């Protein structure tokens, strides 16, 4: 990838979600195809938060949705708790979706404007039970309370009567009522102001501890992702560049793209010299005709002839730190060993 390879996958017994060789392609007419996601693999252990970062068009949202089979991926396998979601028929998948929930970017438009908050949050229970209204309200009010919304005040109100941050809290409550095994958070704080963003991030951490949640956290803001994630995967043009434990990734980025992203992130400190940071070269290539070999090579300052010919594979460079690059900024472990 950025490259392919599965060196970074852990034994299946340690993880609850395992995605292998995932491809998502969309036909765009004229016989052309958008290669949105091209052969990425990752896994998540129970109670872990995996951050997916990358710029727009890198396929991070598509990856999140592909886990939920929305739409069905083109190829590959998505296993949740050992069961392959790709092999399930529509009805089985429908039942399985109770284990998978999603929180969307725009909190206001992801709530039905014509329904009352009490109904919106109770909707999953309406389908899957319990069907008794009092029991439902008990679960719903408890959940609203957990996300910092007064249940008695909110019950008969509609989405427009709440702020963006409150709507996001309600969306989170709705995702949690089914007690899912995995929640996909697709840019859940990007639309919020920074003060409200901090409230929501803190709350997600609290809920994670309380319910033992497993999260896929998709965002473009590297600082936000680092704050919430245990491991972070960096994506570029449908491929995975680097995957690592979060602190390690930010301290020792090994992929030139990760380093570029980190360098471009504005730091709220006037003493940091922003002019030392190199600028990104050129533009993101089209996912319709991605570059051969390493997809980042057209913008990479280190690219040479091998990057054009051979797609780099994921390889280990230190404990829980994997990179798909021919010229990683940190010396790879295997290479170091062979020099001994």
């Amino acid at each position, binding site marked *: 990838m950025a490259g392919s390879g599965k060196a970074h996958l852990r034994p299946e017994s340690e993880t609850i979600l395992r995605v292998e060789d995932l491809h998502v392609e969309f036909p765009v007419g004229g016989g052309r195809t958008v290669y949105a996601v091209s052969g990425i693999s990752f896994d998540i252990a129970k109670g872990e938060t995996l951050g997916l970062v990358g710029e*727009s068009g890198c396929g991070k949202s598509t990856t999140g949705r592909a886990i939920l089979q929305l739409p069905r991926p083109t190829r590959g396998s998505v296993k949740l708790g050992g069961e392959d979601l790709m092999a399930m028929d529509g009805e089985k998948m429908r039942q399985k979706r109770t284990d998978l929930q999603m929180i969307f970017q725009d909190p206001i438009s992801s709530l039905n404007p014509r329904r009352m908050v009490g109904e919106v949050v109770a909707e999953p229970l309406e389908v899957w039970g319990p069907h008794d209204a009092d029991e439902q309200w008990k679960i719903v009010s408890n959940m609203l309370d957990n996300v*910092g919304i007064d249940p008695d005040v*909110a019950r008969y109100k509609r989405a427009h009567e709440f702020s963006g941050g409150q709507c996001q809290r309600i969306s989170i409550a709705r995702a949690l009522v089914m007690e899912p095994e995995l929640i996909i958070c697709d840019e859940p704080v990007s639309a919020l102001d920074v*003060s409200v963003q901090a409230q929501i991030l803190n709350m997600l951490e609290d809920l994670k501890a309380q319910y033992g949640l497993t999260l896929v956290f998709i965002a473009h803001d*590297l600082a936000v992702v680092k704050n919430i994630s245990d491991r972070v995967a960096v994506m570029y043009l449908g491929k995975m560049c680097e995957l690592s434990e979060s602190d390690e990734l*930010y301290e020792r980025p090994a992929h030139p793209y990760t380093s570029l992203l980190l360098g*471009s992130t504005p730091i709220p400190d006037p*003493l940091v*010299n922003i002019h030392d940071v190199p600028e990104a070269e050129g*533009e993101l290539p089209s996912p319709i005709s991605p570059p051969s070999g390493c997809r980042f090579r057209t913008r990479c300052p280190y690219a040479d002839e091998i990057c054009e010919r051979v797609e780099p594979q994921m390889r280990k460079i230190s404990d829980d730190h994997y990179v798909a690059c021919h010229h990683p900024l940190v010396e790879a472990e295997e290479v170091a060993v062979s020099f001994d």
Partner: protein
Amino acid sequence: MSDAPSSQRITKRPGDDPLLVVENLKTHFHIDAGVVRAVDGVSFKLDRGKTLGIVGESGSGKTVLSRSVMRLNIAENVETAGSVKYDGVELLGKSNKEMRDYWGVEMAMVFQDPMTSLNPVVKVGRQLTEHVRYHLNTSKKEARLAAIELLRSVKIPEPESRFDVYPHEMSGGMRQRVCIASALACGPKMLFADEPTTALDVTVQHQILNLLQQAQQDRFMTMIMVTHDLGVVAGRTDDIAVMYAGKIVEKAPTRTLFAQMKHPYTQALLQSIPRASNPKHTRLSAISGRPPDLINPPSGCKFSPRCPYAQDKCYEVEPELKADTTPGHEFACHFPVGTPEGDAAFEANMAAGKPQTLAAAGKLAATEDLVTGGAV
């Protein structure tokens, strides 16, 4: 301030007046629900060649302020009062026709959304030359050459062929470059950049911010950069004004602001930003509550219902913006951060168990309706 980025290269010509003097500017919108006090008494001066960052959350009035200065929100229900002097000339009260002599040639604006600020059915070239031909009275051919030169200066590859494309054929970053080129086309003395990079990816943001700064230095422009992101203005402005509920609550040279902030809102805003340099799962210091309703703002200090330092006085008496000991540093607070009064106020609130103070100290989860009272 003297050691800030742009002033290293640009020395202020002695005796020059400030390019822009804004005094007690108020912009109120009359709507069915009441009067929205979007900008409510803002005063500042801006010297030539300097960059001012205006920072605040949504609804703080930062965009309305910059549009009011440029006279871009002229509508029946908008009431603007106060004074905006540009190069010694009062702009308030000027008609659209009179303002035409200023827009583009004297002052220009780069907007947030490059997707919608270009006309989708007009080729890029014409959008770049229309105002050049109007203001500078050049021929079509000259304007074309100038526009191509501009496209090159904003680092658009193959500018000759880009001249004849429609905006949708370009990426967001490229379109923002075109918007910048268009704003620079008539050589304005003053540039407003209203969240110029909010809609862009982080690597593109870096490119565009560098480009703006370069253009500002090359052309000795005065710039106002409006943003919600303190990270964007940290290394790129001479001064920063922090806005809350239509007012400037603190204004200081950039480094002073970050090092010795006095207003609790500035402190809270800065502390609530996640930083890549902190270890993962670092608890963020969230601000309780949410920005106030601008139709019925709270009495006293507008930040008081959310403020961890607030005392009885804050709910009753609105603090004035006053100068601090450091030159150029102004703030509006009764119990400033880092002073004995401020510390005492914080301690008293901790002892009294005020939720917003406990939340600021990380002892309680911050929520939106904790203190705003009747927000839901």
